[in-house]
């Protein structure tokens, strides 16, 4: 990935939004955080909620690290990043279990696994430890939104092809009234789309589309 190299050069001119959403999208360009991405995206709702949780962790870690960046000692920075990320994720895990219990049952293991999402550590290392709070926060939101977008698109594709529905399980977020939001598409779906191969094929298709667009726009 040649584009990934741009992360390490802090060029001031680039908007964090184009970086996170497109040029350095964590999932499509940096290919970080793929373990939860591939495992969770069987439905729109699962992808959406994991994306939200990941974005929240990114924002909170970036802000807290950026605030104390002057005090951070280079030799211990990685352990400190991990400590901060781990305690924030643990708190979010507990809070989702308290407030969105049913959803927590579904996402299960993958909320604690946000700790191991490398794109969060990458944000801490390349952005938050060198940039002011405002920029770090925007960068976290952008990278989180980029990750969320891929989770949602992949989750929707797999849900449509795999289960023949869309927005199933919205009740887990919005309460019992959200049953009506589920769109039944009138077919049973292909099993492979919700099994692990579907995740790899779906992500491959998204990567291919992104690469085609990049190549086209570079030619013009």
């Amino acid at each position: 990935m040649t584009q990934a190299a741009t992360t390490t050069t802090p060029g001031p001119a680039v908007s964090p939004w184009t970086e996170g959403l497109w040029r350095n999208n964590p999932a499509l360009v940096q290919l970080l955080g793929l373990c939860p991405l591939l495992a969770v995206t069987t439905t729109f709702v699962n992808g959406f909620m994991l994306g939200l949780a990941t974005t929240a962790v990114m924002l909170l870690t970036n802000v807290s690290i950026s605030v104390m960046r002057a005090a951070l000692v280079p030799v211990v920075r990685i352990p400190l990043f991990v400590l901060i990320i781990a305690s924030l994720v643990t708190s979010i895990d507990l809070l989702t279990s308290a407030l969105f219990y049913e959803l927590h049952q579904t996402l299960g293991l993958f909320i604690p696994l946000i700790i191991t999402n490398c794109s969060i550590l990458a944000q801490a290392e390349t952005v938050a430890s060198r940039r002011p709070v405002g920029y770090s926060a925007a960068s976290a939101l952008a990278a989180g939104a980029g990750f969320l977008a891929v989770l949602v698109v992949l989750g929707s594709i797999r849900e449509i092809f795999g289960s023949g529905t869309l927005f199933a399980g919205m009740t887990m977020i919005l309460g019992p009234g959200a049953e009506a939001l589920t769109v039944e598409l009138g077919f049973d779906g292909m099993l492979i789309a919700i099994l692990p191969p579907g995740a790899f094929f779906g992500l491959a298709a998204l990567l291919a589309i992104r690469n085609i667009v990049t190549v086209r726009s570079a030619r013009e």
Partner: protein
Amino acid sequence: MAEGRPLATLLLVAAIATAAALLVTASWEFSRERIAANERARLIASLSSVLDPSLLDRDLDPVLLTVEDETLLGTDEPVEVFVPVDGTTPLAAIFASVAPDGYNAPIELLIGIDIESGRITGVRVVGHRETPGLGDLIEIRKSAWILQFDGKSVDDPPAAAWAVTRDDGQFDSITGATVTPRAVIGAVRNTLLYFEAHRDELIARAEREAEARSEAESGSTQAPE
């Protein structure tokens, strides 16, 4: 920068570690009771789903027994049996049995049995790791397969018919999944066998527990833990 000053570095690490510990403690304090309440609500909701609907208009506060039988209940761990009571009269027995021979892992079940008739009032899968789209059709939110057990008892259908249609039984097969339905059917029947063999003992134990509980409630104003 505190580079080369070990003490300052140490203090920084200690300060951040303390802040992290405080954050996690605060979240735990905030969440602990809510999580316990959520778990309790989920338990009551899942117990309700396997009970005869006529029992649901009352306050469900079942007596909890534990029993052990590795061959019939699928696990060498103690198995929980929830017994809703009317006063001290047991109404039903809900077994948290396990089908040990699931495809990927043991399948956890809740099996409700009417205490008078010995007939099943409901079965639900509460935990499994079967293949999505195949074996997970045993889940109520994926298909109605699990409802076939309602009203069955140990002799109805006869032992030979406790199998999927493909094995000349009377329960629907699940396309693409052979192991999963066999495991569930076997576990349900085994639980019924256990219930028939220990029915009187379970009733006696539940009555004793219910009596002890009501005595404790009337004997002292303290809320039972």
